[in-house]
């Protein structure tokens, strides 16, 4: 929140602005130009596919950060909410032959409804109890998808086929890139607007002390439910994008471990920070990409290790990263980023 010397706010609008200085505007324009005009045409399909997965994961994680980071409600069922969005889209496309783009709002609202239902216990229970109820939500939702028969495709899942928007068939990584990026930009902006407005302040009040928040006139239950709905709507949109991107949906795409990954992203990135969400997802996913790309060559070089050892090393690393972040930097990478920016501004002085 520190700003360069001599930058003052003279109105509330300026105080809330996302880009406050001319330098930030220049950076934003250059970054946007790079991401939308240069990178998609320079990068190969393999890099673009990784960027696409990153972007969809960021969308899902933004929702969780609003719920957990801002409103303080734990959610161990986030992967299941992503799955709900994916399945709603897939069912509408597969059974009713809708256009995929039309299914996105249905996925968002349908998932928000499911999230509301599982947010209802937060009226009476909190803390550890709510964490375990979201765990229950995960198992119940995934059970329904697994046993849904022809409607959900059971263990085989559903196929969506090629996605068509207007006259454009979305068939290669670059087209997916633009589609996903449009969603990402809009949803990031939306998330930023939620958390810097009245809603976000209410969330933070509920997180910091819910009884005090209630005494100040904040309807805790209403805001907790809104947070659950927003979180699951984000998850729904992300799930819908996953369904479109992979072209198929099945139960094993959404494991309980995915839910843990989402919480890991916001811990590493920084809880209660939209920018931190980006850091967390990019940091941890890059490690994952690195391991999965290096892994096969390692296991071929050392045949004694076996195929399971790469995934187990990945597990150990991920667990250690989370524990180390919790111990040494509980505020996440975002906090480091702020410190770095401050030290650059004051350079060569220390403060």
């Amino acid at each position, binding site marked *: 929140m520190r700003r360069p010397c001599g930058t003052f706010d003279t109105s509330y609008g300026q105080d809330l602005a996302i880009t406050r200085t001319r330098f930030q505007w220049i950076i934003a324009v250059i970054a946007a130009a790079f991401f939308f005009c240069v990178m998609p045409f320079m990068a190969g399909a393999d890099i673009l596919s990784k960027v696409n997965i990153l972007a969809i994961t960021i969308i899902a994680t933004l929702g969780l950060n609003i719920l*957990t980071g801002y409103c303080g409600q*734990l959610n161990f069922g986030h992967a299941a909410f992503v799955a709900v969005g994916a399945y709603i889209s897939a069912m509408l496309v597969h059974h009713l032959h809708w256009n995929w783009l039309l299914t996105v709002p249905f996925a968002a609202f349908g998932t928000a409804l499911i999230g509301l239902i599982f947010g209802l*216990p937060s009226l*009476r*229970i909190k*803390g*550890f*109890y709510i*964490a*375990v*109820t979201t*765990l*229950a939500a995960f*198992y*119940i939702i995934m*059970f329904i998808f*697994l*046993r849904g028969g022809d409607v959900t495709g059971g263990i085989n899942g559903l196929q969506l086929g090629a996605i068509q928007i207007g006259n454009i068939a979305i068939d290669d990584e670059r087209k997916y890139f633009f589609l996903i990026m449009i969603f990402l930009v809009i949803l990031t902006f939306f998330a930023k607007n939620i958390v810097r407005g009245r809603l976000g302040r209410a969330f933070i009040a509920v997180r910091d*002390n819910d*009884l*005090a928040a209630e*005494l100040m006139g904040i309807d805790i239950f209403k805001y907790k439910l809104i947070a659950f709905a927003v979180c699951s709507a984000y998850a729904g949109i992300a799930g819908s994008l996953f369904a479109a991107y992979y072209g198929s949906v099945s139960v094993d795409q959404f494991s309980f*471990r995915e839910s*843990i990954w989402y*919480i*890991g992203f916001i*811990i590493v990135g920084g*809880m209660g920070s939209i920018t931190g969400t980006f850091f967390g997802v990019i940091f941890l996913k890059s490690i994952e990409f690195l391991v999965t790309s290096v892994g096969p060559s390692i296991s071929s070089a050392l045949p004694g290790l*076996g195929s*399971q*050892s790469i*995934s*187990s*090393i*990945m*597990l*150990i690393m*991920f*667990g*250690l990263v*989370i*524990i180390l972040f*919790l*111990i040494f930097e*509980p505020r996440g990478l975002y906090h480091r980023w702020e410190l770095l920016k401050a030290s650059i501004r004051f350079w060569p002085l220390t403060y």
Partner: protein
Amino acid sequence: MDFTYFIQLVLSGLLIGGIYSLLALGIVLIFKASGILNFAQGDMSAMGAFFAWYLASLALRIELPYLPIMIVGMCILAFVVAFMIEHFMLRPLIGQPIIASLMSTIALGMVISGLVTFIWPGPGRVFPPLIPTGGINIGDISLSVGNLVSFVICMIVFGLFVLFFQKTKLGLAMRGTAEDQQLSQSVGIKVTIIFLACWFIAMLLASSSGVLIGSLQMLDRGTLAAYGVKAFPAVLIGGLESIPGALLGGLIIGVVEMLSGGYLDKLLGGGAGEIMPFIVMLIILIFLPHGLFGYKRIERI
């Protein structure tokens, strides 16, 4: 679908429930003493059970009695693990919000399960015979002897723990710590030692339930993880702070699992026993937000 079938399901559910009670007891104990919900209980049981299997197979190779070696080895492992967890993970995390403690135990579970997969990869293992197999018939009801013996072992372990908790000095110190950490520190109880002891006991309970599950079925990480997950409904139904609640919750979960498996699987196509415990837990929590015997907390600002 008659009455004997029902009784049969209830009885076998109770027998299975003993194992859930043991796992739940470990979770409750850690929560009471340190206010941390241990999500790694299933993985800890996998680690203990695989280590015990390894020792047993070593002992078989050099023709020594494997049971005492397993028990001693499990105690040593429990001490090492408890020391590592308490010293390197929990001490730095004192005073952090609950998500930090929750996530640290989940991450711990991932590290442990990764280690177990790394050291003992591949398919499941088979224990050397520890508990008898076969079945007995009481009237029309048939029960597995293995389940019966494991239930008896569970109840003995549970009883020993309760005796320890109620009668010994360390148990008294533990109860004091559970009541109020600062107060017990001020009367000279070393709270860190108590934490260490709690994690030691929890690890011991986890590995013994892991060994029991492993010798009833095959020793497999997935099975143990599933048992660990289902210990949570048991804990929450009984109430997070209640030791009798852990016993009762575990038995309830066992019965619910067997009943739903027996009656609902035909309707749903299998797997009902996996989720019915969660649904029952949700229903109970809506009416009793603190479980059956949990503390009703009065909050102040």
